[in-house]
């Protein structure tokens, strides 16, 4: 694996290899000294063009636990504020010869571009509404610990799928692991044609009890202004996951941050069925495993070429 740009690029075996590696880091996490020397002397750059708590902090801590030197760049307060292009910023940071660049960007395909421009291994920490592969990996990891296997498990992804990169990456990852998928939300928040990803589409929670796992998505407040849904109250009335709708044997997940009382009621967040805190804990070890696979797994492994299969975007390509 040269880069982690999308979940689409990974086979089931590759996903499992990363998760197995994460298990070994979980063991390290139980030691008194939680740090390993794997990436000593190598530099990891995190480049965040969007605000983030979980993803940025867990990648930063993951790099530190692996003993890498860390450079954290946030767009706010950097030369990005002064109008520097992504290409020029990447060229600047490349002068430090980083081993890896972890990038979060508000636009689809940004990580793919960085991978073209830089020599470093590139990790997509979220590109627009496109993909968020490390989130999908940590979610599969979290579920695998609870359920052993996702094969044949029914997973419902509920909420604002249209604006969610988590939904896209998770649909692909859960599917690769053998789960059966349903997305559910108001029609305007389910992208037209999403069935292509191999999921069913529902616009009501009536059949929610069929799910083994309920994965709720964040509803951003600005969506009301754009008339995707009439009001938060109306949304909650139809799509909020609460203790009435959630069965006792169903597992609940959410990528955070949660809008309490909107997509989830307070009592389900804190219920024993909720895996939300475990997801955060998984984030650290899975991101350690990602950096390890990219930077330390060695050339002896016959890792497939990176990329999403579409090739380098500005490269001269073949017509379809």
């Amino acid at each position: 694996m040269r880069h982690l740009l999308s979940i689409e690029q990974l086979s089931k075996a590759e996903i499992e290899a990363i998760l197995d590696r994460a298990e070994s880091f979980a063991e390290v996490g139980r030691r008194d000294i939680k740090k390993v020397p794997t990436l000593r002397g190598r530099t990891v750059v995190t480049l965040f063009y969007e605000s983030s708590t979980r993803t940025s902090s867990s990648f930063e801590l993951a790099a530190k636990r692996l003993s890498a030197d860390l450079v954290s760049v946030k767009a706010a307060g950097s030369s990005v504020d002064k109008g520097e292009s992504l290409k020029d910023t990447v060229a600047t940071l490349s002068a430090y010869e980083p081993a890896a660049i972890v990038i979060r960007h508000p636009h689809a395909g940004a990580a793919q571009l960085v991978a073209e421009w830089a020599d470093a291994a590139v990790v997509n920490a979220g590109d627009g509404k496109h993909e968020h592969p490390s989130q999908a990996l940590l979610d599969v990891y979290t579920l695998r610990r609870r359920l052993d296997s996702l094969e044949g498990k029914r997973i419902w992804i509920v909420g604002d799928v249209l604006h969610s990169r988590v939904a896209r990456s998770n649909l692909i990852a859960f599917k690769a692991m053998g789960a059966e998928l349903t997305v559910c939300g108001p029609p305007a928040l389910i992208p037209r044609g999403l069935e292509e990803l191999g999921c069913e589409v529902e616009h009501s929670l009536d059949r929610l009890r069929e799910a083994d796992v309920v994965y709720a998505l964040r509803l951003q407040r600005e969506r009301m202004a754009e008339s995707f849904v009439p009001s938060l109250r109306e949304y909650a009335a139809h799509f909020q996951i609460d203790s009435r709708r959630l069965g006792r044997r169903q597992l609940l997940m959410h990528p955070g941050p949660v809008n309490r009382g909107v997509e989830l009621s307070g009592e389900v967040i804190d219920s024993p069925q909720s895996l939300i805190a475990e997801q955060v804990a998984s984030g650290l070890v899975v991101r350690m495993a990602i950096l390890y696979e990219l930077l330390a797994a060695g050339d002896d492994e016959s890792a497939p070429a990176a990329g999403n299969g579409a090739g380098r975007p500005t490269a001269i390509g073949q017509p379809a």
Partner: protein
Amino acid sequence: MSAGQLEMRSGENADLVLRGAAVLDPVAGIEGNHDVVIRDGSIAELAAPGSADASGLEEIDATGLHAFPAFFDPHVHLRTPGQEHKEDIETGSRSAAAGGYCGVLAMANTDPPVSTPADVEALRENARSAASVKVGFLATVTAGMKGEELTEMASLRDAGAVGFSDDGLPVRSALVLRRALQYQRLCGGTIALHEEDPELSGSGVMHEGPVSAVLGLDGIPSVSESTAIARDAALAGYEGGRIHVQHLSAAESVEVVRRAKEAGVRISCEASPHHLCLTDEEVRSLDPHRFKMNPPLRSEADRQALIDGLRDGTIDCVATDHAPHAAEEKEVPFEQAAMGVTGLETAFAALHTELVLPGVLDLGLVIERMSAGTAPFDVERSSLAPGSEANIALCDLSAEWTVGENGYESRSSNSWCAGRKLTGQVVLTLAGGQVAFRLRSFSMGVAA
């Protein structure tokens, strides 16, 4: 009512003979091998192969080559004034000549937009010194393309504007378009329309469908285009006005135009080679250089509907919407990249490769539609009939070439064909009676 005027650089009229060319001009009813004799910039004679008297003429061995009426593109962006870092009249017209075009119509969405008679006069002056093919200029429908007040349409026509268009933007207000159509009765000049409902398109960057759903890119639904066309066709019908719909992309749009034509509306329309050859599947690469434009590449069903429309005449002509952009405007994530691709140099070769060779469309139909863009704007059409001004595209239909390998005549390189291997190449273009383009490797091979 003055007709719009096209301009080009004055130069030496051609005196040459194309020996043994396969001549094809479906409109003039000419098909067969001839010596095409050109004297003082006009087609003097179509003679039996090898029989023409070549005294005083350059002889070009055109055996195995095809001579077509040169193409006409009613929709290009030459970026002058204000954006000459992307293109100007000299580079843009050279690009057209290299594609076998004898004439183009330049859009008015420059910086500032072409909204005053002085703007039009300055551009015509510029073209008289810089253009290697005939260039006509459209003026905006609304002052400054703001969509509010009409331009001085009559004065613009007097200054030589060929027609009117706010291309790049739709005429948002139905009332403003109605007023323009009413005023058209006074001054003529077809109104060319970029059809899109800005609210339905929203922040869209590609066709709305399964591919946009998977990529997480905001979609531009087909109905954004077709509903706008339906509105404007109704207005044109009501006012008896004459409109030309630009760059059709959706199946629904073809249907709306078809119905409007049946109802007698004075409506014409165009489709671009990229919409005829590509679909939104290409966007999976997230490459904005080749695959980001407005209207966007749509589904395979849409592409088939465009091909059917071109075949049955619902779509009158091919137009490239040649839209040059500088590298830095495209070297950014897809959503942030500028809309538009270049197409003049590859239009014929692409349609020949993708549609003629596989047997989807006849060669005669394709070249007819590629020079039919004159009609909506009352420009004289190129012809190979003796007595006509020499406007000829000489093509080698078996030549294979890789687009971009030897650079571009255009100042920009955002060609949707970049890297494609195409079959069919323009080797010589005559425009306005002059030699406008000669492929370097071809001229080397000429033996008298």
